[in-house]
């Protein structure tokens, strides 16, 4: 334990080039994935949250269930699709960071939809009627509600980022942990522990935790400023 921690500190302080590269790649994958998921999931979440329609309960249940999908299963499924003999092989996304990011996006989209929908339902429905009676358009109404549900929405985005950042199954299946190309923190941890380098894999884990903690502290700081 102590060895891992001192090793982590040493790696960060000395700025080990490979570790920095891997950490940046992890951030980048999680960021891209969350961005894509937000672009798709936010409007969907608003829609589900604001509208009342037949089968809404079913839709919400499905999204809630999809949050818990095992990442290895999703990774395997995506691998079969993205493999060169698979239906989406022509996209050439296998063994690329972009491919991993797409996988993470698919993983976290249900989370964003579900969280955003709940946030809006709890905060915005009364507001919706109020704003509408004041003559706002549908788009303006959405904006007003989003502003009110801001903390719920940011929670959705941040949780998604964390999940995408700390996830192993998809990164391994689609990226295959290629050194200097698709190796991210989680796959590097898996490899180092498989190689018996317990100290180094602990160090990488600490870096992962430090990054997640820092991000979350930053966010809670931001939210307090509200």
């Amino acid at each position: 334990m102590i060895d891992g921690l001192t090793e982590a500190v040493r790696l960060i302080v000395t700025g080990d080039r490979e570790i920095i590269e891997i950490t940046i790649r992890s951030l980048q994958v999680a960021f891209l994935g969350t961005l894509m998921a937000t672009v798709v999931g936010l409007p969907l979440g608003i829609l589900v949250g604001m509208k009342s329609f037949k089968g809404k309960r079913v839709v919400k249940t499905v999204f809630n269930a999809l949050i818990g999908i095992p990442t290895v299963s999703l990774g395997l499924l995506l691998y079969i699709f993205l493999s060169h003999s698979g239906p989406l092989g022509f996209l050439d996304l296998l063994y690329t960071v972009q491919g991993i990011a797409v996988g993470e996006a698919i993983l976290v989209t249900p989370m964003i939809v579900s969280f955003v929908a709940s946030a809006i339902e709890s905060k915005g429905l009364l507001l919706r009627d109020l704003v509408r009676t004041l003559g706002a358009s549908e788009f303006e109404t959405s904006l007003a509600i989003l502003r009110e549900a801001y903390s719920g929405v940011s929670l959705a985005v941040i949780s998604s980022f964390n999940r995408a950042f700390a996830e192993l199954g998809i990164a391994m299946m689609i990226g295959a942990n290629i050194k200097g190309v698709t190796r991210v923190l989680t796959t590097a941890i898996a490899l180092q522990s498989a190689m018996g380098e317990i100290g180094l894999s602990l160090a990488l884990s600490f870096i992962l935790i430090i990054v997640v903690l820092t991000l979350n502290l930053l966010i809670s700081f931001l939210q307090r400023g509200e």
Partner: protein
Amino acid sequence: MKQKTLFLTFISIGIILISSSWYLFQPPKESLIVSTTTSLYETGLLDAIKSSFEAKYSGFNISFISQGTGKAIETAKRGDADMILVHDPGSEFTFLSEGYGVNRKIIAYNFFIIVGPKSDPAGVEGLTLLEALKKIYAQGLEGNALWVSRGDNSGTHSKEKALWKAAGLNLTRIKTEKVSGADNSWYLEAGAGMTSTLQLANQKGSYTLSDIGIFLKNSKKGNIQLKSFVEGGKEILNVYSAIVVNPQKVPQARFDKAMLFLKFLVSDEGQELFRTFGALELGQSIFKPWIPVSKTKSDPALIKWVEEYAFFNGAECPVQYRYNAGDLFS
């Protein structure tokens, strides 16, 4: 207050965007994808080879995907690799005869070892390989010994299955037999890579089949306290080969690049990397280069073993499985 929040959010998003985009839009190098067995990768040998090769041919990038032999072959069949480095002659022959692979070259060899707890509960010290397996089986049923299998369809796993068969034991039956007077089996399946399997064997105090490199590495690191009991011999020979993916069967395979790398592996320079690897860190080299042996015919007994174990119809790569091989087999 709210505007400040939004402002800060945008700033932080901007920082992440910029820091990631320099990375994202780097021009891709010419890449070659090699799916390979874990025992070659996890020792660190392939990263050493990668550095030497990329230093010689700058602008090249070799991507290794570390998997068990079974999965490595499956990956290549799906068109997701350009070359394989594996150690299971049986499945290599299937790979060739199904038309997926061409130009197979044997590149290196070493020997598996049987390792177990220092106390040697089954008493296999000094026995020959097949006697040792039979003894472990008998003692296992008595409840005195345990065995851990890789159980992951890797080359080492294939070898283990072949060894039980050679010892005249039926593995299917072994798996169903219970230790006398208990409800558990003495035969455990790890379903994991070599290091994890060794660590499991270490925890459980059981015997297992290991490749020498990863055993030495973990012993040196203090991860395991197992002892090697049976070493060397024909049955326990471990032969590594490289096979190029056939571009006639898998059109997107990067044949020319794979051939360039294969020629590097069998060159004097490449073979020297096999010979010297591990000497510094582990005190002894763990892979033995094959090309010098086959060229100089220095060890007739060993050559005979390799021919019997890893040749197909008297050749490392029969003529019908060669494609634009140039002088590779001369």
